[in-house]
């Protein structure tokens, strides 16, 4: 079990499985708000769903309308459990607040390297930490 320090932005304590995007994500055009499936063909996670996962990514890019896509995910019950970014930008901050999805950033290390897809994560925004239980 490894523990990393993070900055909480949208509060919430959750446990779940990580899905890690190695590249920046554009929510508008990159994620289907009805299914949660990643539709950006340049992303190695193309075709996978972020629904019910703790979605880990370096940063968001693209249109600021991406915030509405994140909100749409929650309305359609296909939202991720939580979001972990290296750097949370306006798009993802606005989206996570509208959708009330826990959001943390600014870890003391590159989260897209220290967390692997399938790892079990515990996010605790009160303690400002994420616990990582490595996948076998």
């Amino acid at each position: 079990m490894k523990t990393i320090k993070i900055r909480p932005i949208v509060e919430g304590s959750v446990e779940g499985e990580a899905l890690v995007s190695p590249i920046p994500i554009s929510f508008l055009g990159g994620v289907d708000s009805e299914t949660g499936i990643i539709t950006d063909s340049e992303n190695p996670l193309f075709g996978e769903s972020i629904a019910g996962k703790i979605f880990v990514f370096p940063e968001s890019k693209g249109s600021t309308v991406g915030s509405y896509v994140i909100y749409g995910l929650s309305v359609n019950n296909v939202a991720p459990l939580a979001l972990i970014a290296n750097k949370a930008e306006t798009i993802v901050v606005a989206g996570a607040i509208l959708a009330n999805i826990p959001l943390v950033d600014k870890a003391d290390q590159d989260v897209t390297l220290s967390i692997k897809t399938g790892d079990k994560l515990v996010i605790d925004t009160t303690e400002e930490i994420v616990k990582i239980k490595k996948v076998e």
Partner: protein
Amino acid sequence: MFLTKEQQMMLDGEYGFAIAKLTKLVVKIGEVNDATKLIPIKNAQIAGVSYFTVGDPIFSFFNMLSKDKVKVSVPSWLNPAGMDMERWEEMGVLESFADKQRRIIQHYKEMGIETTLTCTPYLIGHQPKLGDHLAWSESSAVSMANAYYGARTNREGGPSSLASAIIGYTADYGLHKVENRVPSIIVDVNTSTANFSDFSALGYWYGEKFHGVIPYFKGIKNTHIDQVKMLGAAMAASGSVAHFHIENHTPEARKVDMNYITNIVSFDEKDKKQVYDHFNQIKEDANLVVIGCPHSSLEDIQYIHSTLGEKSIKEGIEFWIFSSQKLMQTDDAKKFLTNLEVKGVKIFTDTCMVVTPVIRRNYKNILTNSAKAAFYLTRDGTNKVNLLSLFEIMEGVSE
């Protein structure tokens, strides 16, 4: 972050769920950017209007807002939609799209937002004043507000500008603070900027090279508002540059302490040519001309009218100008609009080449004088463009 009693009550839900959500949105964006307080805004310009760019998720958001019947608390207006609200069929827009587009605009209207549907609010009477704090989101309008008028706005997103329009505040960070408005590069412009497209090329070149850095331009002689808007739009598109200074011309330029700027670059003929060459992609005939990115002013259209003279647009070529309804309804506009339409020039309002779906769907080879339009139209590889001066375009497509 320090909040006043009223702001704290908004955040705590005293004014309902939607206000609490939107206040939290503005506060959290502020906290992430190390703001220590909220500041009141004079007005807001809201993007996120075209159904082509926002899609269906926006309706979920509108539903949340309409439950609490929220309204904007400061004068607010809208960016362009995905179609001319009257002549959409002529553009090739489908009924299913038009229906969703009308619903989006109706939602905004019910919130008390003026449905200007333009990226150039400053051309229709909404000129900001020196030092005004604003929440504008259209990137070219943001750069004009900051640079040309000396007002203060960050490049807001659709959601954050709407939130600020409703709660009346934005977070005090970025370009709202004087210390973040100073340039850090001097650009010596050593080549002619006679054509509007030259300003566009300069902006595109700079933005691509110096992403997000505020420049101080020297050597630009003429700065008509229509030229400056081409410069700012291109810089914002290629490099997210939200503010700039032009020596002897923009209101904050004379306050700049030049001694602190050590980074000096030059924009030469070869740099300008490089941009035109990059957007010289069409080998066969073009079938569409698009002008009006940012939206054309009356002078822009008058220029086309006088250059055309007795000639008409050639058979087989569509010639589209984009502008705002408010400008086109003026008596000055009516004088030459009918004549232009007879000669094959279509003037669509409320929309533009970047946010309408029809251009990517129905056209391939396009001529434009705007590097911003060229950038967005070619980004996903659907269209090919030639970036030319308006005069060159008119020479080629009229007879």
